[in-house]
């Protein structure tokens, strides 16, 4: 937090909120964090053989120029630096055998109940487990700090964090045409879900110049009925998909309900690659830039 430049704090309301939230979160997280540190203290830090089950943390390790410390990857990690490493399976359901066979000294995973068995077995075998939870941008910066400690690269981690903050601040300075559009992040389903205001996606939308539709939801990924979306008539839809923009727009235009949205009729659907938008890691700044540019395309610049 100390790395946020004063001029950014004064010029940018959005990051102000993020920073304030991060301070609050850092404070209430303190006991939790020290517990995590205690846990990690059992290992021989810095970690030399690491497996990260969290793709955004894997990205961060690569961005810290520490890809040589990684000895495995999940099947979702396809960055060229680590594409040749052996896969341990999915991030939430890795193969315990494959993990142990790689002889890591540190496994980074989600703070998730599904892991309890896995974590206990790894720790019984002398392998440290670091649990992380990334909900919003504050957590992204906290996780970078944590990586700096775990890998004993605090300076590089601080520089990387500063770069991410700087690029986010640069994006949020540009803004969109007024009035500020309401942006609905659509996780398709029955019923659909969206991103709460205090998730990294909700914050990315604000940094990129939009106002999250259903801003009354703060945390997590709430279900909202299609009827409620119709009643809210958001200005722009954001969809994470690997399909082309044309394909996604056509699919929405054919769906009952969705096709009645003015945003869909007027083609204001923004498509961002799923592995970019859904990954709260060191590329946050460039994702915000991509999102901003796409929003400008359908809404106009300030």
């Amino acid at each position, binding site marked *: 937090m100390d790395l946020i430049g004063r001029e950014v704090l004064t010029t940018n309301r959005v990051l102000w909120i993020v920073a304030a939230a991060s301070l609050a979160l850092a404070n209430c997280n303190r006991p939790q964090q020290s517990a995590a540190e205690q846990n990690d203290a059992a290992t021989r830090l810095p970690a030399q053989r690491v497996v990260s089950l969290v793709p955004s943390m894997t990205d961060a390790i690569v961005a810290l120029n520490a890809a040589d410390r990684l000895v495995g990857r999940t099947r979702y990690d396809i960055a060229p630096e680590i594409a040749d490493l052996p896969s341990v399976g999915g991030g939430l359901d890795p193969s315990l055998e494959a993990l142990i066979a790689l002889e890591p000294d540190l496994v980074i995973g989600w703070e998730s109940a599904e892991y309890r068995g896995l974590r206990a077995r790894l720790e019984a075998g002398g392998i440290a487990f670091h649990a992380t939870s990334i909900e919003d941008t504050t957590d992204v910066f906290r996780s970078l700090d944590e990586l700096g400690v775990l890998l004993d690269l605090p300076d590089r981690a601080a520089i990387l964090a500063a770069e991410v903050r700087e690029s986010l601040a640069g994006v949020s300075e540009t803004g969109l045409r007024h009035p500020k559009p309401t942006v609905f992040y659509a996780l398709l*389903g029955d019923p659909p879900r969206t991103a709460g205001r205090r998730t990294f996606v909700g914050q990315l939308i604000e940094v990129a110049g939009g106002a999250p539709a259903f801003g009354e939801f703060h945390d997590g990924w709430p*279900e*909202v*009925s299609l009827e409620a979306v119709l*009643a809210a008539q958001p200005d722009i839809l954001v969809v994470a998909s690997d399909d082309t923009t044309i394909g996604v727009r056509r699919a929405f235009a054919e769906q*009952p309900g969705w096709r009645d949205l003015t945003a869909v009729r007027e083609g204001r659907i923004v498509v961002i690659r799923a592995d970019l938008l859904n990954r709260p890691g060191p590329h946050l700044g460039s994702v915000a830039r991509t999102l901003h540019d796409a929003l400008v395309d359908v809404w106009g610049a300030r």
Partner: protein
Amino acid sequence: MSRGVVLASLVLAVAAAIAISLRFGAVGLGWSGVWDGLTGDGDPIAVAITRDLRLPRAVLAALVGGALGLAGATFQALLRNPLADPYVLGVSGGAAVGAVVAIGAGWAGAAAWSLPVSAFAGAALAIALVLRIATNVERRLDVRVLLLAGVVAGTFFNACILLALSFQEAEAFRAAVFWMMGGLGGASWRLVWMLALALSGASIALLGLSRSFDLIAHGEETAGFLGVPVQRVRLSAYLIASLLTAGAVVAAGGIGFVGLFVPHTVRLLWGGGHRFLLPATLLVGAAFLPLADTVARVITAPAELPLGVITAFVGVPFFVLVLRRQTRQAPA
């Protein structure tokens, strides 16, 4: 009450159920808002919500309920077993596997009609398989083995769905929930017309068979002596019931127990031969499912419960009740 009056009031009940289903949802419109939306006089949002979302969903719910009720009544008549139901017999599961195969193999993308056709093939294969398992060496159908075979087949089909979906990473979980628990979120007029066509054809054909069903209820041999072409009736009725099940599964996924308790309710309330039982079952099913779907949409709004959860919560106690009564009547 005469049978005609009962059927007429059931038609009104279906209309009322659809009206209630139109009235309630995540966005409060009120009766007048719904009416204005339907007539096109309301604001565009109310029009979109009622015409594009609620109306096709309510009508599709009625059709699915009717189709499942009718399929259940047909299976119960043929098997002379009150516990028969497309879900319990594994026929829904077979249809779902057929649909998932059509999607996975890319046929559904290439030609839209291949999805219902494949689901129908899956349903027909499933009932053939279950009957084959349950028919012993003396070629007599053992009813207890039949139910067991249905449950085993249904479990196996669920495993097949999970297997097929685990090769398709994206959204596989949501798809699995749909095919195993059911839901009407994908309602569209195209599905409504498809199912309406199948249901009207099947209803007419089954009504033509209703006298044969009445006689088969006294035993297949007796029916044969009285001039019923038992094998032909059985084959066509199984195919029609499979068609109805497949149509319901394509439209709404695997929804259980509707085919079980709807025919029973009709029998308990009014009794009667199949000429009355079949249309009454169709109508009670068509009134029940829009109401169940309204509960599924409203109870945790704006989130939605899977529709199969509601029907299971109504259907399973009913199943247990019927099972206990049946075992008391005929101790093994």
